[in-house]
């Protein structure tokens, strides 16, 4: 095994082009587990923690561009107000030590159906900035990024540079089922984001299908149902129907963490609850980014 440690983004892209089998390494919270347990022996590790650009975030064209190497801890501390749904999800990742090292970029690279960062990225309409030395940058919508269990849309010579997402324009919530408050891989999870300017609700399901995915029928239903102008109350039947449609978007399996039937039930409950919290915040005129702790 080789250990590649580029210090610039250009060098990192060149290394990945030359060695497509090299496994990118950020905080190590997924990759090192596989190596420690002999579950994976890549021909090379491509350590990206020396590439300073990746650990930075910025705003451009009204959107946030968050480098693939920004840790969950920094995301919570520095961007929690602008990305409340993702910050709530980040707080449920592992433990403080894990959040000090783990990154959304690494989460995307691993592309686990249970990755906590994915549902908020889907609900918020994020895009993933991928780059290769040969073809340059391409933007991949989060909804197109996950292609199978632990598979993503990256080509072998591509690396994740950043994700782009708009700061919250309305309330956002993330909810997750697990056996305790720390060190939990989601049994299932759900994210909701209100986009009042577009009169639209975004969703993201985690650990409920081969990939993280949106519940598009649920989004269309509730976006049409909500009283955006009058900010009237959310009718209980509408909230329940929203939960049912979210459940219909899922394709969960039975596994060690839970049964498919339980996951469906839990998704319906989480969808109804998080939507209710978000809509009540919106009705109360809560500014974007004021979402309560809800995980």
């Amino acid at each position, binding site marked *: *095994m*080789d*250990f590649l*440690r580029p210090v610039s983004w250009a060098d990192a892209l060149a290394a990945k082009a030359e060695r497509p089998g090299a496994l990118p*390494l950020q*905080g*190590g*919270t997924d990759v*090192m*587990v596989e*190596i*420690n*347990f002999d579950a994976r*022996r890549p021909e*090379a*590790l491509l*350590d990206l*923690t020396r590439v300073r650009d990746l650990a930075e975030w910025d705003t451009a064209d009204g959107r946030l561009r968050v480098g693939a190497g920004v840790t969950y*801890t920094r995301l919570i501390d520095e961007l929690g107000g602008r990305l409340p749904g993702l910050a709530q999800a980040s707080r449920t990742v*592992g*433990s*403080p*030590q*894990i959040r*000090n*090292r783990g990154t959304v970029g690494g989460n995307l690279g691993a592309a686990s159906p249970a990755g906590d960062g994915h549902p908020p990225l889907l609900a918020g309409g994020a895009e993933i900035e991928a780059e290769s030395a040969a073809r340059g940058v391409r933007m991949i919508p989060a909804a197109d990024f996950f292609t199978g269990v632990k598979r993503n849309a990256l080509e072998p010579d591509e690396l994740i540079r950043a994700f782009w997402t708009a700061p919250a324009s309305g309330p956002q919530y993330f909810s997750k089922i697990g056996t305790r*408050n*720390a*060190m939990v891989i989601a049994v299932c999870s759900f994210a909701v984001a209100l986009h009042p300017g577009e009169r639209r609700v975004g969703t993201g399901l985690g650990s409920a299908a081969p990939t993280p995915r949106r519940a598009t029928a649920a989004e269309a239903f509730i976006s049409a149902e909500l009283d955006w102008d009058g900010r009237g109350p959310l009718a209980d039947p509408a909230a329940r129907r929203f939960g049912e449609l979210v459940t219909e978007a899922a394709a969960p399996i039975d596994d060690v963490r839970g049964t498919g039937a339980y996951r469906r039930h839990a998704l319906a409950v989480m969808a109804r609850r998080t939507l209710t919290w978000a809509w009540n915040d919106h009705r109360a005129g809560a500014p974007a980014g004021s979402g309560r702790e809800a995980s």
Partner: protein
Amino acid sequence: MRVNVTVNGSHETVDDVWEGESLLYMLRERMGLPGSKNACEQGECGSCTVYLDGVPACACLVAAGQAEGRDVRTVEGLAEGQPGDERLDPVQEAFAESGAVQCGFCTPGLIVQSHDLIERNPAPTDAEIREALAGNLCRCTGYEKILDAVRLAAERKAAAK
């Protein structure tokens, strides 16, 4: 491969490091620093917690090569003074006095993580202590004595300032 790293203030060069090796393995097996404990090897237990550039991390999930040029501080580096005339950190003293150490295997990780908590938050609430230590497992104490130790250490550090 060769790794150059500063550990507990001392510049070290380590040779013949395997590319897939963890920082924890390098510390314990190549550098004679067995204080950080090796238990789960997957970040679940926190017993290998060390400071990496001042930020607590599970050493089992840091590749040794990622520590190149970085600053590592282990539980062995918390005491002050020269060998033979060391004074334990107040967190270490509080753990010993409070009965927060039983079998002792989780203790180094808990001490490093508690040390960081008190550095950042000199008067943590019980909820903040529980949150800070959520990634450190102890199978002996039931945690109550550990909470006592952290509270005691925070009080002593505050009084000493």
